[in-house]
């Protein structure tokens, strides 16, 4: 198996790591660099709990190899707040009651942030489509959709 030295930026910080070829970005985040905010729900790109932003676009980090991230800019849930000031989407989801167990929440926040970045005023159907890759079993989604609409206003 091949090993590779990579450099990447995570939440604005430069990181360096030695990774095996078969390590995923999710493994790198959670196990090597200990950014445990991003979660592992299925390792198959279906549940969205592992969603992070890679070079500005949301991806399932369980299906990205760490070695592919050499030179990449990664944003995880831990990077949403700036100096303890929460991102509007974080405030909004708390306010709307869209957090219960919290396990899907990091992925949902990143996917929502990405949506608002590319579409600052999304319709309800656009929000539903943007979040269809994030499974939630607790909330029933309605308060999450409401939160995204509220964050768009903020």
């Amino acid at each position, binding site marked *: 198996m091949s090993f590779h030295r990579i450099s990447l930026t995570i939440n604005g910080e430069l990181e360096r790591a030695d990774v095996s070829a078969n390590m995923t970005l999710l493994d790198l985040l*959670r196990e090597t660099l*200990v*950014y*445990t*905010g*991003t*979660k*592992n*729900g*299925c*390792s*198959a790109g*279906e*549940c969205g*709990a592992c969603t992070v932003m890679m070079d500005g676009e949301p991806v399932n980090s369980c299906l990205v190899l760490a070695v592919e991230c050499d030179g990449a800019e990664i944003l*995880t*849930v*831990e990077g*949403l*707040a700036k100096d303890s000031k*929460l991102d509007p989407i*974080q405030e909004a*989801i*708390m*306010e709307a*009651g869209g*957090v*219960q*167990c*919290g*396990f*899907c*929440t*990091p992925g949902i*926040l990143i996917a929502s942030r990405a949506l608002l970045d590319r579409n600052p005023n999304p319709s*309800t159907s656009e*929000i*539903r*489509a943007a*979040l*269809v890759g*994030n*499974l*939630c*079993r*607790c*909330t*029933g*989604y*309605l*308060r*999450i*959709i409401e939160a995204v609409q509220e964050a768009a206003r903020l």
Partner: protein
Amino acid sequence: MVLSEKEARPVGESKPRLDAREKVTGAAVFGDDIQFGNALLHARILRSPHPHARIISINTEKAAAMPGVKAVVTGEDFPGYIGLYLLDRHIFARERARYVGDPIAGVAATSEVTAEEALDLIEVEYEVLEPVVDAEYGASPESPLLHPRLQEYQVASFILPQANSNISNYFKIRKGDTEHAWDKCAAIVERKYRIPHIQHVPIEPHVAVAKVDESGEITLWGSSQSPFAQRNLIAQALGISQSDMRVIAPYVGGGFGSKAGVSMESLAVAIAMKVKGRPVKLLLTREEEFFTAFVRQGLIAYFKMGCDENGKLLAMQNKFYWDAGAYTEYGVNITRASGYSSTGPYEVPNVTTDSYCVYTNHPVGGPMRGFGMPEMHAGLEQCIDELAAEIGMDQVEFRRRNCLRDGSILVTGSKMHPTGLLQCLEKTAEAIGWGHKDEPSAANKRRGKGLALMWKAPAMPPNAGSSAWVELAEDGRVTVGVGGQDLGQGVFTVAAQMAAAALGVPYEWVHVATPLDTRYSPYEWQTVASRLTWSLGNAVVNAAKDARKQILDMVAESWDEEIDHLDILNGMVVSYKSEREMPLKDIVIYGLPKPDDQGWIGGPVIGRGKFMPDYVTGLDPETGQGERAVVHYTTGAQAVELEVDLDTGQIAILRGASAFDVGKAINPEMVLAQIEGGFVQGMSSALFEKLDLKDGYVQNPSFVDYRIATSSDVPDGIQAMIVEVPQDDGPWGARGVGEHSMVPTAPAIANAIYDAVGIRLDGPPFTAEKVYLKMLEAGVVK
């Protein structure tokens, strides 16, 4: 204790969640997030590839010799039985494998990959046996016995296994005279329903880390609804003392019952016993999550019910064959709970119910949200609709005439307590616009409305208890200790609200001691059964009142005043008489000086409280009749409006309406959130979910082919409504609602499908294909 007279705030207010900020910043620590450093070993489990087989031999030599492998264990190493209500299971399978996925051996190694490779080196010889894959067949005398020693197993007194059979629990109701009641019925409906197995699908898979130190003390970290029950059951199975084991339970990423009792946690502990001093982690893959921890039992249900010409229910006859899987140590109680609730929330004078818990070579059935109620109501509430139609009565009117009220005689002969079921029915019917049909949105759609009622009692032993402590600090702020877990439903938040109200401090001053840790947290039976707001709530209130009494006793003596003139408001002790006041922080640690200044009174304040119901009686094993079978029932109603696509059979849920009688909403927004979330989980189970079992093999153990509701599937709105008819022994009158909102959704949807296109299916999921082919058969489409 009801404190309805006292100023309730912040009880009744929608306070923000205690744990929200941690969760939105990614700081909240879940089981797989805990860091153990390089000492951590990884476990993988070798599982039976056969649904039913004798284990002839296991050779672990080669696996044990692999570099990096620290332990290999099998059932040989752990002879003890484990179980909650019935000890029918070993930690690792012994002698026989009884389902695909049954743990045969476990490996701990320095990496997951090494452990996985070691599994390939374990040689197991099986003698494959014919599997039992149907519950009715399993219950019949023709079936081979899956547990030949059933009658020797230790069992709780209220569970009744049938010797020399696969029936591990048989619950009966014999009320009135059903046999002769049919003649008096103007209409009778007889139906059979098949409810498939489904799974909880928590987004966080099961995870457990166990470490056994040199002294033999075990520590178990895990995603757990039940730290105390896990300690109890695992300790008993290993033959050790409960106090020699410690369970630490961080945040849970969804439970729904899957993380109650013991499923995979015992495997981690067992393996850890062979690698003293090093923590061993077992994390299930999503595929394993689907069928190797707990699943929801399947059900074959026969209903027969009849009413008179005025729509009054006269008789019900029910037969339930619960496909409970390979081990029924927990699932046996579903048989009982469904039995003592088998009329649904209606008054029926004559009832015959036979509820069977049947062993099959299927995955292990365990507690899932609703504990038998969703499965039972799925068919029962459709029969109610059909019976109403038989006598030409509106479905809401029929329910209005029959639904339970205060004082109704229940299926067990007990009396119903005050309930807002009728209010729930009326509010729900109104909210969905019952009786009014809107035009479909297109020519190829048909619209329909459907409604269903439900009830459920907490299913638990009669002496399930809660305890709590309340401690104050030098800054006057409060820590509450509980043993009940927040799964997302908000228990920590409402515990803080109740403590704040009962003590007299602002909500913001209260903090709950987390993570749960059996070393420091007070005992709680389990976080299941929708029992915590009521039971843990009472314990918290008692603890807060105990602390309050200690404080006021101290102040009364120090100020030489009557205790009745004193109060604690907003963190301040005040005297209504002298108008003296003093902040708590000046009192709660260092005590107060004696009135004459010669010495001190009091000291550090710690309040303690407990709650355990003392009034649950048994039920007659022949008739299922008894004085008081359960602590209480939560009731409710749900309605949906949907459209059926005539081209494809697809169902689109347009909107939902739902009302539950929670007695008192401690945090109204969180109650509404439970009602919405349960509706969606119920809707998901109605439209999509099924563990596709074929000859004992799950065909779809992944998200690709086990579909759940996504953001695109939920209706535009779910109108959730709260009804409050107080529970006499609930804190401020509260009772639980965590499970209930998932119960009536499937039959409400089924009834709405019937309203739209006139067809019924033999059970969920109501997939587009099933709906379409049935419409074709019925001539609704060509």
